[in-house]
């Protein structure tokens, strides 16, 4: 256990030091978050902060709704693309083989490769909420933190499992990420990120029920803005837990198979 902690911490320290060594890029990323939020803040002002029909279950205006939607969308993006991006970076830097000489099981490696992205995504989400709540007045005072934490934990597992599927593709094919392409592309439309899924026609709503992000967005909105309890959120938590329990073994198995395939092809270090 101590070794696992030390290994994960080593990944975090290494990734953090590499990230902040590119100070300009780090500053630009922060500015990007702020400017993205401002766009939706002014859209909200344009429409008079009204709680329109489809937003009534959440009891908030459009800006507050989209604030959480965007925060979770970004959270999902980091989860899905983060592991694949990390694999790709380690391949390009030539360090993947050196890591794989170490006594790792695929699950341990997957945890190491995804830990920094997960922490970054959590920090980014906290930044979204802080910026939105403190500076732009999003109403987060009623938040049920336990419910929000459970939703986020299940979301992390689901998104990172999809990330492992994406990383498996990168490990074998080196470029092209159909998992991110499908899920991130579709999630913006169907996942309730920019508007509640109730706005969609029935057949699209049925499709949105297959996406973990749909449950995560709705659950988080209700937990943060309505202070919904775990019991109230069972309609979101149970399907999300089911998707997480299916996706996690699938992601781990595909990642282990991809490493084996790359070793067989002799292409671990290729990019």
């Amino acid at each position: 256990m101590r070794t696992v902690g030390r290994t994960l911490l080593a990944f975090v320290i290494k990734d953090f030091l590499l990230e902040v060594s590119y100070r300009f890029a780090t500053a630009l990323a922060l500015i990007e978050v702020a400017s993205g939020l401002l766009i939706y803040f002014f859209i909200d002002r344009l429409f008079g902060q009204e709680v329109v029909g489809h937003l009534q279950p959440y009891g908030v205006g459009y800006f507050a709704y989209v604030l959480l939607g965007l925060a979770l969308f970004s959270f999902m993006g980091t989860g899905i693309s983060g592991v694949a991006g990390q694999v790709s970076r380690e391949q390009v830097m030539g360090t993947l083989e050196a890591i794989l000489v170490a006594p790792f099981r695929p699950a341990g490696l997957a945890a190491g490769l995804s830990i920094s992205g997960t922490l970054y995504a959590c920090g980014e989400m906290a930044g979204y909420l802080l910026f939105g709540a403190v500076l732009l007045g999003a109403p987060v005072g009623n938040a049920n933190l336990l419910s929000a934490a459970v939703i986020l934990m299940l979301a992390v597992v689901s998104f990172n499992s999809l990330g492992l599927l994406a990383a498996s593709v990168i490990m074998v094919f080196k470029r092209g990420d159909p998992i991110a392409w499908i899920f991130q592309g579709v999630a913006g439309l169907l996942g309730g990120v920019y508007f509640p899924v109730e706005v969609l026609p029935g057949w699209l709503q049925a499709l949105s029920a297959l996406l973990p992000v749909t449950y995560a967005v709705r659950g988080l909105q209700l937990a943060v803005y309505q202070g919904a309890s775990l019991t109230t959120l069972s309609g979101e938590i149970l399907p999300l837990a089911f998707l997480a329990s299916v996706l996690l073994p699938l992601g781990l198995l595909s990642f282990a198979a991809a490493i084996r395939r790359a070793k067989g092809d002799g292409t671990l270090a290729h990019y």
Partner: protein
Amino acid sequence: MGYVVEAQDLTKVFKRSNGFFRRSSQGQCNSLIRAVDDVSLTVEAGSVLAILGPNGAGKTTLLRILAGLVLPSSGDAHICGLDVVQGETREKGLVGISLGDDRSLYARLSGRRNLDFFAAMHGLSRREATQRIDELGRILEIPLDQSVQASSAGIRQRILIARALLHDPAVLLLDEPTKSLDPTSAQGLRGFIRERLADHLGKSVLIATHNLAEAEALGDEIAIMSSGRIQARGSLDALRNIAGLATGTIEDVFHQLAKERE
């Protein structure tokens, strides 16, 4: 004395694409490359086997197979009796490898940060890692707090060797370890490999090189590899006999054997 490294009939065939629109003379989109061809070898504890051969001979692929980074198409390999292909040797940390690619370090971090990260990967506690890194830094004369990208190629090469030694493996696999070093540094490193690692610490070392003098200086035995096969193996005297030479350097032997192959 028992063998630390034992490989039996190792073969690795790579499938390589000819390109999206190109076909081979046999009309196939992919061609097969036999990088390692039916190689068997053994190495005793505390001995150095120099694998000598031209570029593309299959030396690096052989080392990668022994490190568990490439799966063989057929054959098997054991280190200290544990199966390499099944990942048993990796789990026990029996192998350290330096692939000689100085790109395989985090260039924006210091040597110490790099080594500390890989020490954690091998399960060393922070205290063990610090002690080990300081010790290796002293022995290999590495300026540990300098960033890797500001370090010379020679220093990076030393960091790679230090990384391979972090977890104190029984077997060390070194691919062209002196390729970026000036003659004095190269000589110092050879002395370190021969005297400290093999003679003093009893490590088994497999060193892939196309440097004839290096193979002669380091190897208890030399395996001459070409086209994926070990063409001849033995001490310099034994290789002279195989080549039919009464006297001569390893260079004479190498060229004589190459001539015979043609």
